[in-house]
């Protein structure tokens, strides 16, 4: 069975925020709501890395566990979705989530929280697929059209991979085998594919 997953390859992410823009444009989320964001770790320092983060569709999702009205559910593919009609805007999922995925549009004075909004893995919500109501509440349902999440498909460097977990894990594995990981991904030889880089990669694979 397909298990939907995201991976962000920190060696490739160039912090272009294309995923953020793709998501906002695909789902027309309200102002102040960002289902996806890019975090740059050690910005401006040696070894800087950027990484795109949104809902990770956890297997044991903390948001589901703490929701006082149990408005979360999980699809067969492991996508964590929720019913906005049931959501009371308490913010508990926001406290529990390690990734800061749940977003709350402001619904009144004093920062009163509206209905929670988060990444749906482009799988909509519990309305009729691609109905006007679903698009209004949850955005596009690309999965039902046989497409992958807009952020991953739009990624210019293919840093953000999304889709069937086994497939994207093998893509990532192939990359790591070929180019190395972490500190090794560096240098002109690596960038311009010189022979010494290839021999380095080969040696690494042997090791």
């Amino acid at each position, binding site marked *: 069975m397909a298990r939907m997953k995201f991976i962000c390859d920190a060696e490739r992410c160039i912090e272009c925020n294309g995923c953020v823009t793709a998501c906002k444009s695909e789902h027309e989320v309200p102002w102040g709501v960002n289902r996806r*964001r890019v975090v740059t770790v050690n910005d401006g320092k040696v*070894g800087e890395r950027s990484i795109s983060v949104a809902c990770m569709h956890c297997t044991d999702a903390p948001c589901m566990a703490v929701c006082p009205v149990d408005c979360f559910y999980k699809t067969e593919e492991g996508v964590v979705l929720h019913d906005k*009609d049931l959501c009371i805007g308490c913010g508990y999922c926001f*406290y529990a989530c*390690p*990734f800061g995925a749940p977003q709350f549009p402001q619904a009144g004075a004093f920062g009163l929280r509206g209905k929670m909004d988060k990444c749906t893995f482009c799988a909509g919500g519990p309305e009729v697929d691609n109905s006007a109501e679903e698009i209004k509440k949850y955005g596009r349902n690309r999965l039902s059209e046989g497409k992958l999440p807009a952020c991953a498909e739009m990624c210019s460097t293919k840093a953000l991979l999304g889709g069937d977990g086994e497939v994207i894990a093998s893509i990532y594995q192939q990359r790591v085998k070929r180019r190395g990981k972490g500190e090794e991904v*560096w240098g002109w030889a690596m960038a311009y594919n010189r022979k010494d880089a290839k021999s380095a990669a080969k040696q690494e694979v042997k090791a």
Partner: protein
Amino acid sequence: MNSKFRNRWVLQLVSVAAVIVAANVFAQTPAPTAVTAPANAPVVTPLVVAPIAQTPIVEAPKVIPPLPAGSTAAPGWNLPPKWSDVESTGQYASVRGRETNVLVEDSGQWWRSLRNGPLTFYGGIILLVIPAVLLTFFAIKGPFRLHDKLSGRLVERFNSAERMVHWTMAFSFVALAFTGITILFGKHLLLPIIGPAAFSWITVIGKNIHNFVGPLFVFSIIAFFFMYVKDNIFTGRDFTWLSKFGGLLSGNHVPSGRFNGGEKMWFWMSIVLFGILVSVSGLLLLFPNWNTSRELMAQSNLIHASLATLFMATSLGHIYIGTIGTEGAFQGMKEGYVDETWAKEHHALWLEEVKSGKRSGMRSGMPAGKAIAASQPAAGDD
């Protein structure tokens, strides 16, 4: 009994037990996605930011880990960030907003495990056991009755301002308690019965009641504190009262002032201590626009829910003693006046103060025709 047979029998039992134990030990090895996942790794692909434990880069690397043979990398100048740089530490994010620059915030897992675990479990037990104990006590011993007949002379115990503040606090407390209970326990108790849609409506209305009644409760606590603190200062005789459980065991009342040791305990522990902590943590949760961090909100929520549960538990005792548990006590807070007999039996020193004129027994206008001032003997008395 044949010893050979017995030995075989024992052997068989031991082997069966061994099989069962071994099987269960094997079966109980935690599943990969067990609920008790470590806090900082809730089932995410670990490929992304693998915490490669290496020396920290400050400006120039001091200890450079070896690179694979043939690598063209400049040693030490492309080390990926350490996990400790990522975890719960603010980084850079071009998306603006509260804590958008925090990649992973692991305090939520701690909050979740405490809230969904001990807080719900023991809190629920406390809120079920306390009323059961009180009702059992009532069924066995009944209310504390007055030993003497009513004198017919009334003493003013609470003036109208004091009563108004008390009842504002009481009604807002009850509203907050019920809506709070719905949020913590509702999905276990109410949701399976009435279904998700109806429960969501109840909870969203409850949440708004909780949000808007909360500040009223905070104000009433402040007013209550200043009105009642004077008579709630602990004195030596309160400790005598407490050490004798207010005469509960002996049946003899220990003389006390306007408030006895138990009432002072309720005042200082519940209304002052719990009240302040629950109010402060509640206000932190009430205003998401104060830029409160998730960690602080989670901590506030734990303090709020656990102390509110204790507050509710102690309030049940207070409500019991103030209503069905003590004859004539409810009248004092409802109408403001108590009978002199009641005052003599429960608060003898206070009555003495009133009678000797140290303290006025009449601080607000008495309703016409309702009562007679304490100093005037009632007709037909003696």
